[in-house]
């Protein structure tokens, strides 16, 4: 019976990991990462490792997604400020010619 539970948990963890990777928007990814942390902690409990599960819950479900959301907020603001700067420098509001050239060349 416990074998089935462990097998199911491993499959669910692998599926959740795939979902985390396939979520492109980093803000949404933080929420999915929190769910993945919980799945991983459950798998660790099924593998008879309560100490590790405790660390995983504390760290992977609470701390890391919080830091990810805060980092995303700061990055978005920095990118927006820089785009406004670049538009101001070129002289025309909302000018994104510089960005297009960069993208073409890469």
């Amino acid at each position: 019976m416990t074998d089935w539970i462990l097998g199911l948990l491993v499959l669910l963890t692998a599926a959740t990991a795939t979902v985390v990777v396939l979520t492109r928007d980093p803000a949404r990814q933080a929420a999915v990462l929190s769910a993945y942390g919980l799945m991983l902690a459950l798998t660790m409990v099924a593998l008879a490792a309560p100490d590790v599960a405790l660390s995983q819950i504390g760290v992977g479900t609470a701390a890391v997604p919080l830091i990810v959301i805060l980092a995303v907020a700061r990055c978005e603001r920095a990118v927006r400020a820089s785009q406004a700067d670049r538009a101001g420098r070129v002289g025309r509001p909302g000018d994104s010619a510089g960005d297009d050239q960069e993208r073409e060349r890469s």
Partner: protein
Amino acid sequence: MRRRLPLVLGAVGAVALAVVGVRAFLGLPGAGEVPHPYAARAVAAAYAHTTPNAVVSVTLDQRGFDTLGEEFVLLAAAIGTVLLLRRLAEEAHEDRPHDYGPEDVFEAVRLVGALLLPAALLVGGYVVLHGHLSPGGGFQGGTVLASGLYLAYLAADYRTLERLGPPGVLDTAEGVGALGYAAVGFAGLIGGSAYLANDLPHGVWNSLLSAGTVPVLNVAIGLEVGAAFVLVVAKFLEQALLVPREDGDDGGDRDATAGEGEH
């Protein structure tokens, strides 16, 4: 072509890794049936030092030196993060008045936070102190303590977090924790045996003051891990929430950049 290059290289690397990995996994003993000789010896050593929690005994007693290294890696990462997120000279030159972000929180959230904060701190302290008796220890308890302080931010605002855990106090706590671990090791040297030897009295099985140096090391690590995580999150909060106020605008672009309220 240039855009595809990382994908192609990645695919080739992944295939190579998969081939080698499958061969390696096929050579591994199947999980679940193989006897673990090192485990038997580790359990015997844990019993010899009256530590019911064999994992904590291995972490802090038998492989204590490795944990010293890991602890200092954590310290370095926390210091690095704090340094990277400090306000640089260019940002200080902007010199506009700053806002700390939204402060109006639902009363219910405030109440729940006020009730849960002492409970979380208590549970964190319990997990740290009873690490050698039940699942727990410095690392786990430290993260629970840190989570309690995140509640202070979520239920109130950034200023409350700052008042509960002033950066100066947190810095000192982190340093004291790291130094404490290294210092306890020297107690072993002074006592006449090896560095980090478990020479304090081992006490009675299953009591709080047992297992020698293990509870002391747990407290040191709990202090350091908790302080490090609160510091790091506080720095990120400061970065995400310090919103430059536009001229003539009272709140700046508050709604656009609120840390959690964005989604």
